[in-house]
């Protein structure tokens, strides 16, 4: 649910990073934060446990530049991936404009990815959103590790609709901006439709 402000000539969009525990959502935001110029970013807020697991959300506001005279701002959020934080995940999804699903490519996380994707569908559904219709991209993260499933395998299972999919290594930043750009593109194109 974007916020178009004709008074200040701004447009705000909310993007949520979703995925199983430890898949690298927070790492994605940290990389974006570290690589973004001071004047284009706000503070990054992380509500996390002592062991740096996301407890409620991470929040990173970005001001990317202007489109047709409107400042475009993206508010990036991550959800807590651990299964038992489901109530919090639902809250973060409120008013979302676009979703990035960060999959953990490691073989042993195969089932966790499926479970998290199902959970995303259910929670969107509860908010009256349809995963088939909203701007949605998938990142296959942790490609640097040795024990990963092939992208074909992951894609077949997690991406039947063939939304934009990208390989990533959030720790080194590979694919991170490409992912953000892919979802931003879908979100902005969506505005065009509504407008």
């Amino acid at each position, binding site marked *: 649910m*974007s916020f178009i402000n004709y008074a200040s000539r701004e447009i*705000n969009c909310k993007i949520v990073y979703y995925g199983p525990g430890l898949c690298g959502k927070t790492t994605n935001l940290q990389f974006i934060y570290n690589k973004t110029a001071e004047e284009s970013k706000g503070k990054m807020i992380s509500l996390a446990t002592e062991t740096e697991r996301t407890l409620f959300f991470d*929040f990173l506001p970005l001001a990317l530049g202007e*489109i047709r005279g409107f400042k475009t701002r993206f508010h990036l959020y991550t959800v807590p991936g651990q299964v038992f934080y489901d109530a919090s995940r639902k809250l973060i999804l409120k*008013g979302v404009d676009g979703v990035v699903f960060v999959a953990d490519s490691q073989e042993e996380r195969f089932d966790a990815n499926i479970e998290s994707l199902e959970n995303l569908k259910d929670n969107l559904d509860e908010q009256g959103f349809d995963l088939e219709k909203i701007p949605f991209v998938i990142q296959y993260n942790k490609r640097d590790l040795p024990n990963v499933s092939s992208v074909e395998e992951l894609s077949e299972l997690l991406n039947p609709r063939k939304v934009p999919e990208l390989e990533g290594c959030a720790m080194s930043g590979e694919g991170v901006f490409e992912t953000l750009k892919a979802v931003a593109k879908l979100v902005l194109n969506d505005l065009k439709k509504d407008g």
Partner: protein
Amino acid sequence: MLGPQSSLVMYDEEYQRILLLLERLLRESNSKVIFLVDKNGQLIAATGETANLDTTSLASLTAGNIAATGGLAKLIGEKEFSILFHEGEKDNIHISIIGGRVILVVIFDQRSSLGLVRLRVKKASNELAIVFEDLVNKTEQEAISSSVPSPFAEITDDDIDNLFN
């Protein structure tokens, strides 16, 4: 009231009305800072001593706070806690919900009091709710008549690529 999925749109005229109401509330309640936030965490307007305040972060955390207490309310069979109050050593925060959709945050210190803030917020809330109703109606009408073409109707891929350079 706005549905959960419709975009919030703000026009100049309503923005000015909102600012006037917030400024008056600031004066009449003797408070330090007042801001309005969309339930999704986007800042709508702010007034008062905002210069050294990270209003973007405040907006996001306020919305998270309201969302979390709203979740708590549901669990115990309440609809929503429509007022939250946090008391600090120097500054206090009074948070209330307007028209089910917008969050009003008032920060005040010992120059004011909870009683005064409550009283003034109540009055201002009703007036703010009217502005937001007008805003919703206007947005709907604009959508139907679409006399004003959306500035985003002609976004190109190049425009989007440029954002990331």
